[in-house]
């Protein structure tokens, strides 16, 4: 058994980048989506939120982003309580949420545009990030001219361009095809290694969660609680294809499946 199962207590020092304290979300009409969630997200790591479909993973991510109000509880980012979206958090959307009438460059620069950064400056920054996600040469194209995978690269570049410390990713690869998804997962690993950022990653794929995340948070079925936190003991510096065949990877996938099985009808 190489996948350590951590207790639910807060992670040891250093201070977590994002803390969730007693978050409860009840939708109008009485549907309870989240019930007393307590979680810490360590700095510079990628944490995956995993759970049965409809369990409220996305709801939790949107509450952390400040896009949805929580019914009870609080979210601390870098030790400060937050009540809305902030410059230290950037969001990557499942459906990309690009502006169809804007070029790739303007879409990537859009977060900076909303912050009032001067045009020449924000376009210079955006150009760097367009190149970083491998879309050099596509700056003047429109989203409808790009494939799904390329569109999500634009969404990722937009989130990187605002230089937030926390990246919130809501099933970012679920709308792209399998091959593109694998390439994305590999790129994400090097992104986590190179950027000193904290990543929160919602997914419904066990394999994806174990592959990209250093910690996997398992949520139970609605009303969701944290059912387990698993830290797969995998060295991230090995070759991508070796990770997928590593016993620690396979064990973690299996143990998460055993934990999730009970929620599947």
């Amino acid at each position, binding site marked *: 058994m190489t996948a350590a199962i951590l207790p639910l207590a807060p992670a040891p020092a250093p201070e977590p980048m994002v803390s969730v304290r007693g978050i409860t979300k009840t939708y109008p009409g009485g549907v309870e989506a989240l019930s007393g969630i307590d979680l810490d997200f360590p700095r510079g790591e990628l944490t995956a939120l995993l759970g049965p479909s409809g369990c409220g993973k996305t709801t939790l991510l*949107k509450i952390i*982003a*400040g*896009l949805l109000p929580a019914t009870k509880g609080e979210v601390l980012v870098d030790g400060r309580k937050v009540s809305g*979206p*902030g*410059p230290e*958090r*950037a*969001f990557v*959307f*499942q*459906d990309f*949420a690009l*502006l*169809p*009438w804007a070029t790739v460059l303007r879409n990537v620069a*859009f*977060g900076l*545009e*909303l*912050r009032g950064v001067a045009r020449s400056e924000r376009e210079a920054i955006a150009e760097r990030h367009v190149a970083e996600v491998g879309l050099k040469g596509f700056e003047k194209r*429109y*989203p*409808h001219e790009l494939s799904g995978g390329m569109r999500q690269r634009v969404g990722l570049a*937009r989130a990187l361009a*605002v230089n937030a410390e926390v990246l919130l990713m809501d099933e970012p690869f679920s709308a792209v095809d399998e091959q593109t998804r694998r390439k994305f997962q590999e790129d994400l690993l090097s992104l986590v290694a190179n950027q000193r950022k904290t990543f929160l990653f919602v997914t419904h794929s066990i394999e994806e969660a174990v592959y990209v995340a250093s910690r996997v948070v398992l949520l139970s079925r609605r009303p969701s609680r944290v059912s387990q936190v698993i830290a797969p003991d995998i060295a991230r510096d090995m070759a991508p294809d070796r990770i997928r065949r590593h016993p620690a990877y396979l064990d973690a996938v299996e143990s998460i499946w055993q934990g999730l099985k009970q929620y599947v009808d």
Partner: protein
Amino acid sequence: MMRLASVALVLGAWEWAGRKPVSPAFPAFSETMAAAWAMLLDGSLPAAVGITLAPLVLGIAISALLGIAAGVAMGLSSKAEWLGVPVFIVLQAAPLAALIPLLVLAYGVGLTSKVMTVCIMAVPVIVLNSFKAIRHTPVSMVEMGRAFLGSRRQLIAKIILPAASPIIFAGLRLGLAAGFIGAVLAELLISPTGIGDLITYNQSIADYPKMFAAIATVILLSVLFIGALDRVEATLFRPEKRGTR
């Protein structure tokens, strides 16, 4: 290419039906064009177009301005929606041409009544389309704007309005077509001037080619206006659509 073929097919059918003839009151396409050419040369057609365009352009401009403003307000605020939507739904369903005599009673037979006729025909569809357009802004696009710290004003100007522009412009196109109906109706029902006068007068003296030339002119104007509107939309809001059509 296909568009040209479609136009040629319709005009060919018109020519054939006119020569057959289907009815003595139905001139062939070539006769109609000859009549139009003659009216163009003697200046009666351009003069009539000028007279008809005045209430039309004025009415459409007012309708577009007020209609879009009201529709957008109703889309953004639930109070405005509560106040406005029932009114405009009733107006859209009502046979508004029946109100024309009332307008004449109130405003006389001059330009005011005709502008009002164009407005009551055009406004409801413009308002309701603008309202629906705002309401159908993709949720995730607005969330994206909020996540990247856009202010309410920025969200409206940079996301909601551009996203709504295709449906708003679809409403403008329908409003324009309705406005044309209103303009001609006003000239037929209120006082015969402009193209409406050409239609009624030539009908009364049984000069059918001239009458049809006047009708064809209205259709042509309407098509030109709508084409111009598409151009405006693409340049103002949707650069990604430029050059693709």
